């Protein structure tokens, strides 16, 4: 499992895994963007938060 910091090495691994190209001068920006967005997800104990169910809901009024 990845550590709580998004390192440049991890970012490069993610880029390679996704098969996309990100210009070298923009790696810092992308790292910051993603790291800021990931802070709370990475701090999360996934066992303590609700599920997102129901994924499907049937309501007569919406039929």
């Amino acid at each position: 499992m990845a550590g709580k910091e998004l390192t440049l090495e991890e970012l490069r691994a993610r880029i390679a895994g996704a098969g996309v190209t990100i210009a070298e001068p923009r790696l810092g920006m992308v790292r910051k963007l993603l790291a800021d967005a990931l802070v709370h997800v990475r701090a999360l104990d996934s066992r303590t938060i609700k599920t997102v169910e129901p994924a499907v809901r049937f309501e007569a009024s919406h039929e």
Partner: protein
Amino acid sequence: MSDAIAYTTIRELGARYRTRELSPVEVTQALLARIAKLDPALHAFVTLTADRALSDARAAETALARGDARPLLGIPIAHKDIYCTRGIRTTGGSALLADWVPDEDATCVRRWQEAGVVLMGKLITHEFAFGIQFPGHRFPAARNPWNLDHVPGGSSSGSGAALAAGLVHGATGSDTGGSIRGPAAFCGIVGLKPTYGRSSRAGVLTLSWTLDHTGPMARTVEDCAYLMQPFAGHDPADPASSRAPVGDYVAALGCDVRGLKIGVPRNYFFDGVDAEIVQAFEEAMATLKRLGAEVRDVRIPTMDAAHSFLLILLAEAYAYHERDLREHPELYGEVLRERMMAGALVTAAEYTQAQRIRAQICAETAGVLREVDVLATPTTLKPATPFAVAHDPELGFPKSNMGPFNITGLPTLALPCGFSPTGLPLSLQLAGRPFEEEMVLRVGHAYEQATPWHTRRPAV
């Protein structure tokens, strides 16, 4: 035409049409002249539809002569350039769609047209509603009429600039993380992000399916109410569209705020907010108390994790743009391209965890809204940013007070609540229960009528 006419309200304009004091053709011609004079410095319009505007205005005159009393008849408006317009190019602010001419109108475009508006043209948007245009972009960025060196906010940048400069009387916006409310805040105008599902997104370019909203922008709360009315209602072409009953938004403005409970979530929404904005906000709460509302502090614990909504936005934006990003990366603006690519780096587990956080925020917010009628917060953390700051590619995506209401889908209004010492507008944000647009409009209107902020004009 005097500034007074350019800035008159929709109700006043309609009344003057009906007494023949003004005609839609006169007003349209005068606004076209005003646009020709002011827009070269503002860059609010990406496409001006002068012939169409005059044709719409003549049709409105004919209808007025027949006694047609529709409130939006002959009202000059323009659309954010992510709303598809039949026969009129719709660029999305992007080189990728620079010459694209849709063959259908977006549902909201059609509904306003059926209400009798005059279409003045298309307003520049941040590229694909996400990326500010850097110098050298195919389309120049709109500028803030209050200070041309500052951004007008985005992504509905042209809508905010055009309204603040008195170029139109109403505009469409879209809001995925604050793109209606941010420009409203920075330009000193009013923007309504309706409940998710209340107004159709059919025919509007997608940024993020589960966060995208459409809505009106105007100079007063009442104008917003008039413009919202035709927007509301079920549209089978939008899978998220609701069949919930539609209220009478203008009628709701006649009610005062005595006895209403206003909750101020003290966690998250005040972190990093400039002192001048906090002061203007507290004065706004004092005004609402004087008007008879009860103001109390509330807490939404998981809101502190709200910034994780960016994972949802990035992943969904990448999913929508993936093919074009891979095949035509050169047609995306610098920085936006990499921002979009970042969505490819979000794992499925991270996207899912962000949705779980979202579900928890929705549940906690719904619980608080059982105790209070509306939530009030500052709309933005700072006044409008200088371009020099906004053009820093390292800026990232700062914490937002608006994203939480895209997460929750709640109806949310931004309206002026003061000015900074440097003369830039400050803004108050009001959010209500699902489908209670009337409530946020009612509270916003009561506050607006008790304060002078909506009457100030930039020196354009």
